[in-house]
C-alpha cells in the first residue's frame, strides 16, 4: 500500500497509481453506484469546462434573473450589501495594500463562476437554478465586469474560452505545476 511503504513512497507517483489499480482487497464492502446516483452529485466544473451541461444564456437574460433572485443580497447594482459580497469593481487594487477581490478583479476562471452559482446560489437554495439560468447569470456578472458583451451567448463551448483579467495573477501559472511543492520551492509552510 502506498501510504505505509517507504520504498513505494520513494518511487514515482506512477507506482502508486499502479498499486491503486489492483483488485479490491475487501470483499463486499460498499457497492457500485448507479449512473443516476453519480449524475445527480457530479456537479463540479473544472477549468476546461468539459462537464458543462447543455444550455445557454446572455447577460441580457441574466439581468432579469439577477433582479429577481440575487439583487436582494448582492445589491441592485451588484456592488454588494451587508448580506453578500460585491460582484464587481476592484480593478487595479490587487497589487495595493487594500485589494478588492471580485470576480472581475481577481477570479482567474469563468468556469468557477458558473460552478459556484450552480452549486451554492441563491443562498439556501443552491442547485435550484436551471442550466440556462446559470449561464445567463454568469454572462450577466461577466458583462457587468466588462469581460463579455451584453449579447454574447455563454454556453459549454464559449464559457471556458472567456479570458479572465487576472488569469495570469497566480503562481505557479500553469495548473500542472501546482501540485509539486518541491519544484515550486515551497518549504517551511511558505511558497515563493
Amino acid at each position: 500500500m502506498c501510504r505505509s511503504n517507504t520504498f513505494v513512497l520513494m518511487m514515482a507517483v506512477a507506482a502508486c497509481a499502479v498499486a491503486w489499480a489492483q483488485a479490491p482487497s475487501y470483499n463486499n464492502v460498499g457497492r457500485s453506484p448507479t449512473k443516476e446516483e453519480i449524475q445527480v452529485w457530479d456537479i463540479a466544473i473544472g477549468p476546461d469546462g468539459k462537464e458543462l451541461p447543455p444550455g445557454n444564456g446572455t447577460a441580457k437574460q441574466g439581468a432579469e434573473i439577477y433582479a429577481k433572485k440575487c439583487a436582494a443580497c448582492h445589491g441592485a447594482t451588484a456592488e454588494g450589501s451587508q448580506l453578500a459580497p460585491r460582484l464587481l469593481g476592484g480593478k487595479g487594487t490587487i497589487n495595493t495594500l487594500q485589494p478588492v477581490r471580485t470576480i472581475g478583479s481577481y477570479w482567474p476562471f469563468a468556469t468557477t463562476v458558473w460552478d459556484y452559482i450552480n452549486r451554492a446560489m441563491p443562498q439556501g437554495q443552491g442547485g435550484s437554478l436551471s442550466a440556462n439560468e446559470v449561464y445567463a447569470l454568469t454572462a450577466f456578472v461577466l458583462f457587468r465586469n466588462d469581460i463579455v458583451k451584453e449579447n454574447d451567448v455563454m454556453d459549454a463551448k464559449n464559457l471556458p474560452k472567456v479570458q479572465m483579467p487576472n488569469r495570469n495573477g497566480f503562481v505557479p501559472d500553469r495548473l500542472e505545476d501546482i501540485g509539486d511543492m518541491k519544484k515550486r520551492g515551497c518549504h517551511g509552510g511558505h511558497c515563493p
Partner: protein
Amino acid sequence: MDPKQSPRRRFLKNASAMAGLAVGATRAASGQTLKSETPKADPKDLHAYGERSRFEKSSRIGSLGLWPPAAGPSRDYGFRTPLQNSVGIITPAPLHFVLNHGQEPPDIDPRQHRLLIHGMVDRPLIFTLEDLQRLPSVSRLHFLECHGNSAMSAPNRALRMAETATVQDTHGLTSCSEWTGVLLSVLLKEAGVQKGASWLLAEGADEVKHTKSIPLDKAADDVLVAYGQNGEAIRPDQGYPLRLLVPGWQGISNVKWLRRIKVVEEPYMAMMETTRYPSLRPDGKSRWFESEHGPKSVITRPSGGQKLPGSGFYEITGLAWSGGGAVRRVEVSTDGGRTWKDAQLQDPIARKAHTRFRMDWNWDGSEAVLQSRCTDDKREVQPTLAGLAKIWGVNMDYFQLAGTVDMGNFNAIHSWKVNRDGSIRNVPV
C-alpha cells in the same frame, strides 16, 4: 494566575448567556467559601453523558472576537479555541475551533449519509457509514489550523493586534484531536485509480457544497476519511458524520460532511481555493495552493490577559506543531529572544499534531518577554517576524499596513510581555 477578564470578555459571556449558548455561563456563580450556600446542581442525569463542572467556564468566542459572530459580507460562522485554558494536547471537541464561512452545520442523519468515489477509477463505489466502519481503521493525533490563524491582516487584525489580546484571540484557530477513520488510500485502492489521474476533488454535503482539490500524492501519504474524534463520533460543526482529514494542511482542505471524492486529472479551481485562499504578494501575484503549515508554536501559560500573582516559580507551557512532520525541538526565551533554552517536550510527540512543551521558570519580578520557537523534523525553524518578512520579500511594516491582504500560514514567533505588576500583555509585533 487567573485570567483577567476584560469588560469585552464579560460582555461576551453575558451575551452568550442571553443567547443560551454557553451552558456553563448561564448559571449563577457563587464563591466556594465555607458558609456560602451553593445552589444545587441541575437535577438532569449527568451520568449518561457527562458534563464538566459548572464552575468551569472556558468557552469558544466568535472568530472575529464578537458574539454573536459578525453579520454582513465579512461574517464568518467561526469560533476560537480557548488555548489559554488548554492542558495536554487534546482539544475537547466542544471547544474545537470552527470556521464554516457563514454556513450552519447541516443536520445529517448518518443512516442516510453516503460517500461516493468516482471519476478516473476502475470501480466507482458508494459507501454507507456502516460500510466504512467495517474497513481497517486508524486513529491518529493531528492538529487542524485555519490558514489565517494569527495573521496580522484583516479580518483578524483588530483582535490580533490588541495589547489586551489573549492567546485565544491571537492563535485560537488551531486545535488538536485524535481522529479515527479509514485511510483514503484504502478507499482509492478499492476503487482502482486510473493512469493519468493526479488530483482528487473532495466535496461536502453542506449548503454551498464546499469543494477542494487535493493532489493524489497527498492522498497516498496520510489523508484520512474520519468518522471519529476523541473517542466518539465527530461533532456536527466538525463534519458529522464524515470528514476529510488532510494532516498538516490548511483547514480549508479538510472537507467536512464529506459526501464525494472524484478522481481527476488536474485541480478544479473551485471557489475557495482560487478566490479566497491564495495569499497575495505585494506585486499583486497570488500564491495559490500553499497547503502545508510550517513550524509554529505559542506559549499558552502564562499568556495574554493572565496575571502572575507575584514573583516565584511558574511553569511556562505551550503548544508547538508543524504541517511538515513532528516537532523536534522547542526553545523558550524569557528575554525577548536574546537567549534561548530548550524546553521539555511532552510525549506523545506525534507527526502533524500539537506537541506540549514545558519549561521551569523563576520569575524575579522584573519585566520579561516570553517567546517560543519551534523546529520540526525537516529542520525547518519557526521564523521571527523579520525572518518571515524576508521569506515573503516584504518590509516588516507590510504585515501591519496591509488592510485586507489575507496572509496564509503566518507562523512568526509570538511574544507575551510580563509587566512588573504581573500583568501579561500581547506584543502585537
